[in-house]
């Protein structure tokens, strides 16, 4: 099977970088993890089985495992300011823009405050848009546990945001 096109590799790189960055909170480390993972993807391309997982799922599994491995060994400090609010969010008025920014900031802070395993779970689903089967593949956990774990994280986030008044639209 031929290697992915440059366009695909660029898209994979961006997704991998985003995931690693969300876990590490450090640009340079996330770039290193992504580049290492791309090297691994190319080196192990012959072993990739497209009947088992998509390229994106496979690649993000590589990125995630490499990042977790790095975190265990180096124990880098997580930067709580990693997630920036979206700049292209549509807002009709200045007031709406302010409210949207505040809400985003509240959500961002709540996400950042989550333990690593919960943060990666909710971001894989809601930010990266993976299906439960793909998340189970990436995290190497039974698919049956994904819904219950997600439910707990969302419940916790919802209550946290309700307390802060940050989820009222």
């Amino acid at each position, binding site marked *: 099977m031929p290697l992915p096109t440059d366009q695909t590799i660029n898209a994979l*790189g961006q997704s991998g970088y985003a995931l690693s960055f969300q876990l590490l909170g450090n640009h340079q480390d996330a770039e290193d993890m992504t580049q290492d993972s791309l090297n691994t993807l190319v080196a192990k391309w012959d072993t990739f089985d497209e009947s088992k997982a998509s390229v994106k799922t496979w690649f993000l599994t590589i990125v995630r495992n490499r990042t977790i491995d790095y975190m265990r060994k180096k124990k880098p400090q997580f930067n709580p300011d990693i997630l920036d609010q979206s700049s292209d969010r549509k807002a009709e008025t200045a007031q709406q823009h302010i409210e949207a920014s505040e809400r985003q900031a509240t959500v961002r802070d709540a996400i950042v405050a989550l333990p690593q395993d919960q943060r990666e779970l909710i971001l894989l689903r809601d930010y990266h848009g993976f299906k439960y089967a793909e998340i189970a593949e990436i995290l190497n956990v039974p698919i049956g546990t994904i819904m*219950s774990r997600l*439910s707990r994280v969302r419940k916790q986030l919802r209550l946290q945001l309700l307390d802060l008044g940050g989820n009222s639209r």
Partner: protein
Amino acid sequence: MTETDWDQLLTGYLDNELTQQDRQRVEQRMINEPTYRAQFDDLKSLQTDIADLDFQPNKTTQWSELAPDVTSRSARSLGWLTYIASTLFLVGYGFYEFIIAETANAFVKTAVLGILLGLGLLLISVIKQRLVESKTDRYKDVQI
């Protein structure tokens, strides 16, 4: 069903991961219980907010330029192989010539032999240590 079960169903409904039967159960409960519907709206809103999160910009966008291609990977492997094989051949040949040469005395030959033997033992110890570490590495099961 417990409230926890209903919470999980709501999450599955939000993510479009339920069976048709469970979807209907959730929809029916949302009709009957406004608080359950409000809970869904909150989760939906939360999901949208998370999807809208952005990051500080990353300057590296051309990842394809950083990824090694097959040609360079093969060339690198071949380069290492050629380099190691040639070096071993030269060292072996040089050592053989040195041993059979009549100009060097036995004392020097023994010293050179000792140096090579020492280097060989050091190499073996390093390889052995690496092998032991690879077998006892806590992270060896991490899939890549």
